[in-house]
């Protein structure tokens, strides 16, 4: 039986990782992720988790050590944030392009400068073209559950890609929520023990990653993109299988909240989704037909499901906790617009940017977005980017 308890997002993350029985963990401390590493170290040093724990001197080495261990057939885990993710970019990109599965938690944090240590999603958003599957969590339960699901997705033979489980630094990483903590046996039944192929093994000698000319490189990239698309079905199936085992599921690529009869829709990413749902409820009390789409996976981008969920709606706003420097809007707004393609011009829409560097995305801000959509819903067209600040 699962145990009902309460814990922070970081505690949920390390418990989720531990339940997946990783062969090896390598990590370097960075705010706000550090307590994930500390928690795992506590379990390993306390004899409660049989994993090799490698204390590295940087995130670049954290990703390199897990890469080596995964290439030798291990199930591996690490976690990071912001500058740490930036430092590990080189082996990070290579992890996905080597098509080696693993899971990394990101307690998301704003990128410096101005100097900051607080929340924001710019770190994970900025690496969305590095070939990883990336998903964002709303609740601490979702963090724990998605780390378990992420291994199942990553190791699926149709996918074979590493997965980021992202959650908002401080807002999720450090705040305590109630959690159903599964038993080890329940997780073992859902996620079989890892028996991954070791690419580096004298028993079957091979060069891992020989020098590859462009004509062949093209084929590898095409396959990688195809796997990313195949992952969409695997993500939905994994969520359904998880529900069968644990009685909880999250909607797969996206979660829809009261969208069925909605005229105006907020699209959110991560922890702000809870506030967004409250704002939708409040708007509905005022007679506004509001709904919410939680974009759970940003890679692969759930274009089809978002287009379908928005079909027949009048207006939408995408709330981003990060920016797209080249588009004067948030990145998920840009991608949502791309997902709508020709239908885009039928909608009234705008990008909302908030919560950078730990700023609050308040209930009032999100209700304000819904009201603004409601006011303009019958006048299709793109509106100016809204900055959620005073």
């Amino acid at each position, binding site marked *: 039986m699962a145990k009902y308890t309460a814990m922070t997002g970081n505690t949920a993350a390390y418990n989720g990782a531990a339940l997946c029985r990783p*062969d*090896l963990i*390598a990590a370097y401390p960075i705010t706000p992720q550090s307590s994930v590493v500390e928690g795992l170290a506590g379990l390993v040093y306390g004899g409660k988790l049989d994993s*090799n724990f*490698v*204390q*590295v*001197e*940087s995130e*670049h*080495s954290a990703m*390199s*050590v*897990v*890469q*080596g*261990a*995964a*290439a*030798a*057939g*291990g199930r*591996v885990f690490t976690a990071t944030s912001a500058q740490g993710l930036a430092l590990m970019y*080189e*082996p990070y990109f*290579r992890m996905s392009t080597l098509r080696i599965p693993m899971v990394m938690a990101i307690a998301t944090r704003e990128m410096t400068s101005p100097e900051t240590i607080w929340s924001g999603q710019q770190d994970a958003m900025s690496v969305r073209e590095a070939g990883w599957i990336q998903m964002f969590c709303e609740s601490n339960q979702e963090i724990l559950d998605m780390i378990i699901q992420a291994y199942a997705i990553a190791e699926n033979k149709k996918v074979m890609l590493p997965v980021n489980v992202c959650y908002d630094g401080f807002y999720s990483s450090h705040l305590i929520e109630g959690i159903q903590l599964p038993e080890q046996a329940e997780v073992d039944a859902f996620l079989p023990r890892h028996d991954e192929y*070791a*690419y*580096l*093994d*004298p028993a*079957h*000698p*091979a*060069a*891992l*990653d*020989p*020098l*590859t*000319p462009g004509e*062949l490189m093209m084929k590898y990239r095409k396959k990688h993109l195809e796997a990313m698309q195949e992952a969409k079905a695997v993500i939905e199936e994994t969520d359904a299988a998880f529900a069968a085992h644990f009685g909880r599921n999250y909607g797969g690529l996206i979660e829809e909240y009261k969208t069925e009869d909605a005229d105006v829709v907020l699209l959110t990413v991560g922890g702000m989704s809870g506030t967004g749902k409250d704002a939708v409820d409040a708007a509905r009390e005022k007679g506004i037909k509001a709904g919410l789409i939680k974009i759970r996976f940003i890679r692969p981008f759930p274009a089809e499901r978002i287009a379908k969920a928005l079909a027949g709606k009048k207006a939408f706003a995408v709330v981003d906790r990060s920016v797209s420097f080249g588009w004067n809007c948030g990145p998920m707004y840009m991608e949502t617009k791309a997902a709508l393609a020709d239908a885009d011009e039928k909608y009234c829409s705008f990008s909302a940017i908030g919560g950078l560097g730990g700023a609050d995305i308040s209930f009032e801000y999100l209700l304000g977005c819904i009201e603004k959509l409601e006011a303009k819903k019958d006048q299709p067209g793109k509106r100016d980017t809204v900055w959620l600040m005073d």
Partner: protein
Amino acid sequence: MNYLDVLKSTKNVMTPGSSACQGCGGELITRRVMQIAGENSVYAIPPGCMAGAGVDGWNFSNGCSAPIHITLLDNTASFMSGVSEMYQRRGRTDVNIVAIAGDGATADCGFQSLSGAAERGTKMLYICYDNEGYMNTGYQRSSTTSLGSSTSTTPAGAAINGKEQQQKYLPLIMAMHEVEYCAAASPSNMPDLVRKIQKGLEAGKRGFAYLHVFSPCPTGWKFAPDQSIEVGKKAVASNMFPIWEKENGQFKVTVNRNPISVAEFVKGIGKFSKLTADEIDAIQEMVDRRYQTLLHLAGE
């Protein structure tokens, strides 16, 4: 076993036809390491001359008859830490974990991961073939390039005459990591090199072993390919590249009582052709001081 018997009885693990230059010290060192470590090993060779020579494979082919990975230029030691940990975890401690990297991947951008793996006591052997520059990409300077060397990024010019700094002496830095085994060797002293490779492999089963090997480069340094071993001999004889080892906390230096001068060493090597007398003096002063330090450490 006599070193010749070792070389006679071991299999050529590296591809017989590599694109390393004629007389390449790196190829000689890599072949010796791979034939002694053998096929029951996992190798890493980051970008550099030996990767460029094809040892890491090409298209769908391997460049050797053992498992190998072209690590990133700067993560060889940390990647191999992960490999080593998995082999220890699976109880396959018979497998040699061996990295063979140039000085750029070792002393420059790879130094952080190397230092980390050494400090952790990762069970592996890390070999640096030090040709004192980024030779694979056109002889750019590295931190181990010696003073006054004319390289493609420190050309001997009218305003600045080659590299302005003395070389960084990496092997001693590695020795101070309290590693299981640390040694400096030269292929010109083959019995010594073979013995140190064997010791390094053995020590690499207990902890971190580091071997820094002088790698004469005819193409980059501009000398005739048939002179590689001669250049190695002179580097050792002049104390430009002293050979020593540290095990069980003890330094042992191959004592060179009557060194030849630096001026004698640089003769005939193209990259040193524009050296001034002052620069030669400065190198000589550094070489003497460094050698005295080593003797002192060894209690000689």
